[in-house]
């Protein structure tokens, strides 16, 4: 095991202990920095990746409208011992190089190295690359144990759902003001009407006009809503997206004179050179970046934490040159995304017996790792639309996200269904996604379908260009103890630290649920008169456990009892006074929508608690 013995060079500002050190600048960390700095607390934020800003009067942005900046050129994995050694992979310019910091997934055929899509290493983390879909969870998502406590579910003969699912220690109403706060401060556009969630203040910006292709999604959603509940049909609503469409006062951001020009389809998996997509940098951190009590240090990799009794008293990191450094804070907030946060805690436990004793007070650290049950259906619309003029999603529906429906369908939890507007919208995307089931087999379709050349390429484009539409569902995954994050016994990162080792499988009820919801997505297309060309779910992808697992959650779940959780209701590690974990790893269940909005809202909630203890 690597040890760090060199004399640290890092000097604390004014030689004082920071009120808080936040590790990670994405959805879990930035709301806390924003809140604490606003209240005069001193905050040091350490971020492994670079700080890429939107363009300014004096400089261009490193984020580009350039299809090769994301999943463009081929890279080759050089990692002996894993099954995909020597195989190609594709990633964005701010996703980690898998050769440097792989995540290793165990499978039936051996260990496979990859990285989850959207795991960006840059200030703002995954919020640089996300499509921006920012759904609230439903009240039921917080109480899935209670909802299922008396139910016998299909494909769950052992009652795993009843046994393993935990209610959250907080309710929807606890989070409601923080959802509102997030919507205001981060900057979202959307429509509250027709969302099946209690609502207070409406802080949404006005959505931009939908892309014409989305009319089919709308029509199909309306019809499916009527089919499922004729008396009280769920109606579609404009998908909440983290893109501002008007001047955003809290962050001082402006939009082009014609906001419609923001619709470029360079949204999902692209950083925004104009800063209209609400990454945590542009929305929460940049506004505080000049405050004297805030210090952000990009390009600094935290290697481990040190402790004394119930205090985390050292944060050890490597500066941009790779030199060891250390610092101290009254509070330490870990928010590196679920897998890397768990790994950091496990690495710290390896090096510090006191830390190990306290963080491993039960055996749950790393357990109940979650992603989303995800899938959908794709089709070809009868006409054509200019899909290059789009954000990421236009319409969503909660027609499969209400109690009556779940009870009648035998599903343990609900899902939001929405259409993807910008998929296959741009010329390279339409080729590289041909036949691809996840991010690890991009380009394979066009590369090896030898019949496509010359005029046949024109026919392929004639059939597909501006005609593709997809409907996706985002659903809870059944928590399983054996779905877990550990340290790999032999594979090391570029700093010679053990990398994360992930075991993950789908529960039989997950498969039942995904098949069911994929059918409903297909039905939306059918009802809209769209020719379906494919339908499926992540469990069916050969690599579906891995690269497509782009919402990484759980592994350090919070709860009311230290016996069955890693964190307390305020996301504090049970046997530490000052250690908090606020990325998605605290989630006991993964929710019926994309998780970023809920992670941010929870971090605002935790930040208020931190103010009370500082």
């Amino acid at each position, binding site marked *: 095991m690597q040890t760090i013995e060199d004399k640290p060079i890092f000097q604390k500002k004014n030689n004082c202990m920071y009120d808080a050190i936040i590790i990670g600048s994405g959805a879990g960390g930035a709301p806390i920095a924003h809140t604490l700095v606003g209240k005069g607390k001193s905050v040091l934020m350490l971020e492994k990746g670079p700080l890429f800003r939107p*363009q300014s009067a004096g400089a261009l942005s490193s984020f580009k409208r*350039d299809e090769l900046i994301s999943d463009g050129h081929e*890279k*080759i994995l050089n990692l002996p011992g894993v099954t995909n050694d020597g195989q190609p992979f594709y990633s964005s310019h701010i996703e980690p190089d898998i050769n440097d910091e792989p995540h290793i997934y165990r499978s039936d055929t051996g260990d496979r190295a990859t990285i989850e899509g959207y795991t960006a290493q840059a200030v703002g983390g995954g919020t640089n690359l996300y499509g921006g879909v920012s759904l609230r969870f439903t009240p039921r998502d917080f109480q899935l144990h209670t909802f299922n406590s008396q139910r016998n579910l299909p494909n769950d003969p052992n009652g795993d759902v009843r046994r393993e699912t935990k209610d959250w220690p907080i309710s929807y109403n606890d989070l409601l003001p923080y959802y509102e706060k997030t919507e205001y401060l981060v900057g979202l556009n959307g429509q509250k009407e027709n969302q099946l969630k209690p609502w207070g203040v409406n802080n949404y910006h006005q959505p931009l006009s939908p892309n014409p292709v989305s009319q089919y999604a709308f029509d199909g959603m309306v019809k499916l809503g009527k089919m499922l509940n004729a008396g009280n049909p769920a109606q579609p609503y404009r998908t909440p997206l983290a893109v501002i469409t008007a001047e955003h006062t809290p962050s001082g951001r402006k939009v082009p004179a014609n906001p419609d020009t923001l619709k470029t389809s360079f949204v999902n998996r692209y950083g925004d050179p104009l800063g209209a997509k609400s990454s945590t940098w542009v929305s929460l951190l940049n506004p505080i970046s000049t405050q004297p009590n805030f210090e952000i240090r990009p390009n600094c990799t935290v290697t481990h934490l040190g402790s004394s009794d119930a205090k985390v008293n050292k944060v050890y990191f490597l500066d941009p040159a790779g030199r060891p450094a250390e610092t101290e804070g009254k509070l330490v907030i870990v928010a590196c995304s679920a897998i890397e946060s768990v790994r950091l805690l496990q690495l710290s436990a390896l090096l510090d017996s006191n830390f190990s004793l306290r963080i491993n007070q039960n055996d749950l650290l790393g357990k109940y790792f979650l992603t989303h049950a995800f899938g959908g259906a794709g089709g070809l619309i009868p006409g054509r639309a200019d899909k290059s003029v789009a954000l990421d999603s236009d319409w969503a529906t909660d027609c499969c996200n209400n109690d009556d429906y779940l009870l009648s369908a035998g599903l343990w939890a609900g899902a939001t269904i929405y259409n993807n507007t910008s998929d296959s919208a741009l*010329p390279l995307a339409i080729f590289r996604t041909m036949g691809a089931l996840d991010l690890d087999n991009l380009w394979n379709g*066009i590369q090896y379908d*030898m019949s496509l*050349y010359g*005029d046949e390429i024109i026919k392929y*484009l004639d059939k597909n260009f501006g005609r593709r539409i997809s409907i996706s569902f985002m659903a809870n995954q059944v928590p399983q103890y054996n779905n877990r994050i550990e340290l790999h016994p032999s594979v090391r990162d570029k700093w010679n630290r053990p990398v994360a080792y992930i075991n993950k499988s789908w529960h039989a009820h997950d498969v039942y649920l995904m098949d069911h919801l994929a059918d409903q997505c297909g039905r939306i297309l059918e009802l809209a008169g769209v020719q379906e060309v494919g339908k499926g779910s992540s469990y069916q992808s050969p690599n579906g456990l891995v690269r497509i697992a782009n919402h990484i959650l759980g592994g350090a779940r919070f709860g009311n009892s230290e016996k069955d959780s890693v964190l307390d209701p305020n996301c504090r590690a049970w046997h530490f006074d000052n250690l908090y974990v606020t990325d998605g790893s605290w989630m006991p269940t993964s929710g019926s929508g994309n998780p970023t909005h809920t992670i941010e809202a929870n971090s605002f909630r935790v930040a208020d608690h931190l103010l009370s203890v500082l």
Partner: protein
Amino acid sequence: MSYTIVADQNPEDILNQCTRHLARGKVCFRDSAGVPQDNLSTVCENWRFPLIQPVTDSNGHTGILNEVTFVYFTGPDRPAGKVEVVGCFGPMYQPIDLQPVLYNNVPTGYFALSLLLPVGKGYYYRFRVDGKDMPDPINPQRKMLENNQEWSFFFTDYYNYSVEFEEWEMNLLSRLVTYILPFRTKDAQNFINRFYLTLTDQQRQSMPIYKLDESVGEVNYITNILAREERHHLIDYKICIGMIDRILRSRNPYVDSWEVSDTLIQQLYSEMATGKVNGWDYTKYKDPVFFLGLLRRHSIMGAFSHPRYGGNIGGVGWAYLKEQYSMTNDLGQITGTYFNWGASIEQPLGNNADYRG
């Protein structure tokens, strides 16, 4: 040639571009290897060095100049005293100092220098570290020059030459790529010719044009990425293009390989697609299907990626799609398009007023 030194180099920008690639564990970078070549394999995406980024000119447009940043990293524990770069961009190969990059007011071991250089050019350079000359230990592009010295090489955006391929290789590559892409029909060729005629002078200035009558520049793209981003496939091309040349010459010994009939090209394509090519030396390269797949992917990427990579000259591939998928009224008149690519792309290439590239 001429250059401008970028004054007030921002250390944050340098570190933002370098750290992910160059900061390594003690066991990884330089400590484990005594010779520079060995270090190359431990640097993530070494082809990114020197760093080459678009910048705007006095008109606010990209496509004329690049900011090229040379980086030398001694490692954090062994700061060098003086690091210079000498190259063909400077008069008489005068050395120019790289400046130490500070972090928290402490030297990092990174030295950097940013120059503004024209697009579309290639440059040789070497580092001089404490008086000792050496090629760039990171950048994999190197050439042995006539004086028997090894020099590092880089090229700026829109580059349309190749130091890796000879003309006959480029000609053959062009013929194969043209067969794969959808631009060989008469209508498509007419469109391409019309497109180039309609380029404004301003657009032409930023788009060096190579063999416009034959291609949309995808060969430029392919040779560029084989020098940098996908250098690991350079060997595939060198072996296979040589082999294809030999096979085509054997099938028609009376013309150059890139001038054989369409029938012979079609025959070769079909054989490669099945993996059974008459005359293929499987001891030298075992899988023609793999190479054909590679060529197919690269051809598509070259035709439709941003022109700065060397293909899709002036956006011709995008413009082709724009016209191919145009909206028409009942009279057949064009009323719009299903691919208004220029709306999101920077000027002068596109016409977005806010995004600057």
